[in-house]
């Protein structure tokens, strides 16, 4: 018994991470992480306490929490409106992205030549550069000359202003983002489907369960860890999405697609309100940290 336990986990390796060698092996990652993530994060918080003059920091003025108080004032675009837009986008991506990619994964799990080609076709958009496809889609969405309105017009359906309309801009960006991201999410679900236990499904079918009952009571519960992962990864990437908003809609019209990430860009790069932009970045960072902590507390382990 004693030998067996020693064989499973040699005593000498138990605290390897805390040994000098452990620290040595971890050092490169720790250094890189400190230089490019931890240090800049701390410095961003420092900058957020100032009316920061990026051109000449010696002229910066200390504001304390002034930039954070400014977040809740009625500016244009406002922080609150940008937060709402971010949540709108993130919520839509979570619900639609998870549901559609799960459906696609269930359809594609059977294999075969045609299915293989379909998997490739669905994944392909995700392999394309976001900025390049955003440019192409800005032409697809062009209200006067775009393919999207041409199709609608050909089908005798009303055309849309797409990214030019206040009400339609965000749905249009969501449609593009789903097109780009679904391949990645589908592959994750497909991976989950390959490792779930088929025996439960077979037993359910023997007991007379229909396809829907089998999915709802057998398959999806086994996919719960994967679903959690998809939701969390979609939440984080959606909150940080920027490129499509920059290229497709420019945050407009009337700030309808100004998300937190776009607001940070506008304030820091266009208006050079670096301190205020840093405060927004810190809040976005805290939201992301909060979601990550919730995930750690609630997500069941992937078996």
């Amino acid at each position, binding site marked *: 018994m004693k030998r067996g336990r020693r064989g499973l986990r040699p005593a000498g390796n138990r605290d390897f991470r805390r040994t000098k060698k452990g620290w040595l092996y971890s050092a490169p990652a720790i250094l890189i992480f400190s230089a*490019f*993530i931890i*240090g*800049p*994060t*701390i*410095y*961003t918080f*420092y*900058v957020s306490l100032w009316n*920061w*003059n*990026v*051109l*000449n*920091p*010696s*002229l910066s003025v200390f504001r304390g929490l002034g930039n954070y108080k400014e977040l809740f*004032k009625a*500016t*244009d*675009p406002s922080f609150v409106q940008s937060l709402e837009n971010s949540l709108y986008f993130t919520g839509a991506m979570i619900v639609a992205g998870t549901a559609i990619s799960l459906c696609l994964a269930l359809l594609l799990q059977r294999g075969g030549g045609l299915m293989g080609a379909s998997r490739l076709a669905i994944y392909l958009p995700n392999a394309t550069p*976001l*900025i390049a496809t955003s440019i192409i889609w*800005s032409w697809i969405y*062009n*209200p*006067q*000359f775009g393919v999207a309105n041409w199709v609608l017009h050909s089908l005798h359906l009303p055309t849309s202003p797409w990214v*030019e309309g*206040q009400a339609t801009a965000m749905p249009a960006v969501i449609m593009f983002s789903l097109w780009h991201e679904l391949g990645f999410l589908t592959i994750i679900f497909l991976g989950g489907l390959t490792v779930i236990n088929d025996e439960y499904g077979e037993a359910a079918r023997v007991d007379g369960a229909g396809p829907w009952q089998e999915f709802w009571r057998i398959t999806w519960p086994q996919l719960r860890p994967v679903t959690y992962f998809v939701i969390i990864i979609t939440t984080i990437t959606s909150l*940080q999405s*920027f*490129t499509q908003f*920059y*290229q497709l*809609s*420019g*945050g*407009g*019209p*009337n*700030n309808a697609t*100004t998300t937190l990430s*776009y607001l*940070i*860009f*506008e304030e*820091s*790069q*266009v*208006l*050079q309100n*670096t301190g205020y*932009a*840093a405060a927004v*970045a*810190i809040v*976005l*960072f805290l939201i992301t940290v909060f979601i990550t902590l919730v995930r750690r507390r609630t997500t069941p382990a992937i078996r």
Partner: protein
Amino acid sequence: MRSRQLAATAAAAAVTLLTVSACAGGGSSSSSTTTTAPAASPSANAGAITGPVTISFDEVYDSGTLKTAMQSAVKNFEAANPKITVSLTTYADYGALLTAETAAVAAGKAPTIGQAYESWAQKFATSKVIVPIASLPGASSTMSTALSSFYTGVQSDLKLPDGQVWMWPFDKSLQVLFYNATLLKAAGITSPPTTWTQFGTDLKSASKNGVVGITIDPGNATEGATSGEEWLEELAAANGTQVYTSNGTPQFTNPAVESALQYLVNLKKEGALATGTNYPGETALGAKKGLVDLSSSAGYYYEQQSVGGKFPLTTTLLPAGGSGAPDEMAGANLVVFAAASSQQQAAAWKFLQYLSGPVEQAAWSAATGYYPVTSQALTEPSMATYLKQNPWVSSTIAGLNSAIVDPPYAWVTQCGIDLSTAMSAALSGTSVSSALNSAQSACSSAQSNG
């Protein structure tokens, strides 16, 4: 100084890394070279270039004839000034340029010369990273003569609120209208309209069978100022009130501005105006889906390229309103950064003089469609053929004397975006007064924050 630079650079890197930085341009940063503008010290040797010197120039002439014309200008200048080498760094647009200039200054690696709009120059000057033109070695004795040769509107555009000349001109343009002459005739319009009222009527009558009279880009934070937003400013001025007072205070809720925006909303409702991005009017005109495009005179070659000879273009001045036909002058100026050495600043002054001189201005205008900033260029031989082929240039260039310009205050950049937002809001269904009230409030807030 070094530690401050490092700290500032780290700050910008921090913001960039923490946020999503898919944005154009290089990294950002902070830190800087806090060089106070050196006092002008006239002497016999002022401005002399004593040895080989390289000056860098950050600009946006990245395509077409703009690129080749700038390369040609540098080549000619270097031939005439063998001790000076000009290193060009080209950016895709003004947004990328501002990001790059800011990052370069913050990293302590500012270019010698850079393009800058008036509001940028104000920010640069108050941050003490550029120098007044008069302080450049050799400039104190020659600047006033060169300055007086420019069109009066250009002259006043070079000054910041402190009254000093901080910028130097190179390329200027006014907005003009490019008509599809064939569609104009088909719509029964015998000559281009001379009033905004008639312009609106003509647009409505020509908007049929898939043709929309005019397509504009209201602009956004990504694009910055666009011809659509400038049109609103021109309409307001034609109604009797500019959108800013001379001290930069917004007047967005003035009835003249409301009337201007309502004019555009009415055109949209009548199907005579559409919106888009990325020079949509040019695209529509070239596709024979637009009657007219409102654009900078410097867009002439791009319009021709888009049209591709499918129909003749008619180019005219802007129509008039109750208070005349004010036109907004466009085109960034040049600034010299404080971090440059004395020799580089002396070389920079020689380069600025060369670029704004009659010979280069004539060559540049003929190649690019920009207006020359000095009337002396009009008599240059290289300008003769161009003026003959484009008679509208001669008839419109005097507008540089009376053109409207945005006041040189840093907050005007944000106010321009606020006005663009108000335009897109009103054109998407928000009431004109509500949209302009929001813009006024946001701009006033920016003004009070400085």
